[in-house]
């Protein structure tokens, strides 16, 4: 399954709907959909606001089920940014400014709501970010 959206935060609603539909098609639970919707929204928003900024650009989103794991792949043409390289958050403390200009809360959310996040720089320019979530259980214990 595939969706292509222009960089515009008003398109995030379509991105979330695409993820819900994909998880439903793959047979995932509402809870799995909820987690992936949150993670993909944060990742896509990050690309729109920080990657493209006010410049036009497109984001391609692909969803696939492999070995009982849902993989959502985001492809963009923005300068390289690896969200997996940011330090983990300590939520025992209130969120505070540690990295002005950063997007740490969103990245923290997308990490906690997935089982794996992979980032690759595309050979022809841009980023490939893959969010992986098991279809069978929660990403973390409640």
């Amino acid at each position, binding site marked *: 399954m595939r969706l292509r959206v222009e960089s515009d935060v*008003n398109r995030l609603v379509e991105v979330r709907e695409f993820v819900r539909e994909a998880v439903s098609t793959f047979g995932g639970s509402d809870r799995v959909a909820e987690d992936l919707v949150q993670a993909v929204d944060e990742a896509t928003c990050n690309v729109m606001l920080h990657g493209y900024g006010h410049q036009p650009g497109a984001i391609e989103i692909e969803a696939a089920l492999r070995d009982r794991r849902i993989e959502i792949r985001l492809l963009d043409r923005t300068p390289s940014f690896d969200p997996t390289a940011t330090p983990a958050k300590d939520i025992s403390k209130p*969120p505070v400014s540690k990295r002005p*200009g950063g997007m740490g*809360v969103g990245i923290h959310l997308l990490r906690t709501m997935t089982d794996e996040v992979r980032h690759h720089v595309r050979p022809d320019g841009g980023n490939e970010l893959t969010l992986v979530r098991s279809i069978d259980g929660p990403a973390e214990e409640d």
Partner: protein
Amino acid sequence: MAMTIDVEQVAGDPPVTVVALDGELDASNYESVIDVVRTAYADGSRGLVFDLSGLAFMASSGLFALHSAVRIMRGEVPPDPEGGWGALHEMTQDRDSASSNVCLAETQEAIARVLDRTGMTRLFAMHANRAEAVAALQGG
């Protein structure tokens, strides 16, 4: 799903504004929430209840809006959205925010999970419904 914002003024001491959010709160509409809170404060409200009974989704931009509301209702300058997304990180270490004049009512499970996972639960008193929240702000 778009988001609608319904505003209700509740007379009393202090005057309280109830802001009901219905739909999905994301990067496309969080500034509307901040604008509503600014107007409520300018109109004299000194307590605010977010009725979240109809809110199905909240992105990190929504967390920013909620935190901005705390600051606005304290008479402080909120983080400037035009100052960059980094303003989201300007959530202060106010340990007493749970007793602030911003409450949440009927928070749905999915939203509560987002608040919990970002350590923001402690910033807001949570109530079962809007009447309870208003009563708490107006001293019982």
